[in-house]
């Protein structure tokens, strides 16, 4: 299994943000999960990508527990955040250079790969296309999408065909809509 959650929840103090979740996702599978709201969806996506540690229960990304081996977990899973890119970067190449440096990737190769991905994302606004391309240049085995735009679902599914995709949504209805356009499980 590429992603496993066993009664994994996330809480801040006494406030439970993500109720206990049990799920599993194999290589190349797609799963769209409806959550109890925006904050829960965001927290769950961060848990699945190893950015946030589960308060209770267990999360495994591949064979790695992000609480113990966060760096190894983050090499397998890459998060695409909800918020669009602010486009404060002077150029697309500069943004990809920044992403490549964080992941320790060769710059030239990453730019070529990113340009190819952005070409495939025709019709997707730059502010959403660039973070997705930035995530995919790392060639993740698991792509985690925090509340992706449903309108871009088909394009996302097309460019992310070589990896498993886990997406979180603010409601079950949104997850079902996303499923309709991408063919993910709900």
């Amino acid at each position: 299994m590429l992603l496993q959650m066993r009664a994994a929840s996330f809480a801040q103090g006494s406030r439970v943000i993500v109720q206990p979740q049990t799920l599993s996702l194999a290589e190349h599978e797609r799963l769209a999960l409806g959550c109890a709201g925006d904050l829960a969806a965001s927290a769950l996506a961060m848990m699945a990508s190893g950015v946030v540690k589960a308060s209770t229960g267990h999360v495994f990304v591949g064979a790695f527990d992000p609480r113990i081996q966060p760096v190894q977990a983050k090499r397998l899973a890459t998060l695409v955040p909800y918020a669009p890119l602010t486009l404060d970067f002077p150029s697309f190449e500069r943004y990809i250079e920044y992403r490549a440096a964080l992941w320790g990737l060769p710059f030239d190769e990453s730019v070529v790969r990113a340009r190819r991905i952005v070409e495939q994302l025709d019709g997707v606004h730059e502010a959403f296309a660039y973070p997705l391309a930035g995530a995919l240049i790392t060639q993740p085995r698991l792509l985690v999408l925090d509340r992706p735009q449903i309108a871009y679902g088909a394009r996302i599914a097309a460019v992310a065909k070589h990896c498993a995709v886990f997406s979180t949504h603010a409601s079950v209805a949104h997850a079902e809509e996303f499923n309709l356009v991408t063919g993910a499980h709900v």
Partner: protein
Amino acid sequence: MKRESATFAIVVTRLRRLSVLIGFIALVAFLFAALQFRAGVAMQLIGATLFGSASGILVAILQRGSQMRDLELCEQSAPLYAREIARAIALIPCIAASCAVGAYWIIAGFSPGAHALAVAGSLASVNAITPVALCATLRLGWRRWLYIAIAASLSGLLTAIQLREVPAALLLSGITGFIGLRQYGEALARWDPISLPSV
């Protein structure tokens, strides 16, 4: 094949976003130094250290603002150890504070009685205080204010020590900076970016 270090990328990207603010701080430092030109080296030392510390604290707090949110999520989702991210982020307020102090001494350095040790002392002090101020960015509520108060108090303490014993102030600055950076790295490793109110 061109590769960049993660630290360099984080520092350059964040500094670019704060370049206008850092430029403004340097400009204010020039004016402040001009105002204190004939104030004597002791007052200049106090002015440089307190102004540099305030600049460092301000820029440290802005590291966790909404302006940096997209960078922060990107850095947190990258396969980097918290200590690497902590070191890179700590460099930004240190650079800003050093620019403030540097700009101050460019003008004040021409005044009679200016001393190289005063420049070194004020630079060391502001660079020690900023990692402490960074710890405030990972806390909420009264704990955040507590760290800001600690940083401000340390600024006053280091200034007072510099006026008597600059080598002692340099040593204390080194110890303070080291402990502050260690604590920031450890806090960053435990920190969940979801705790931001903007989420």
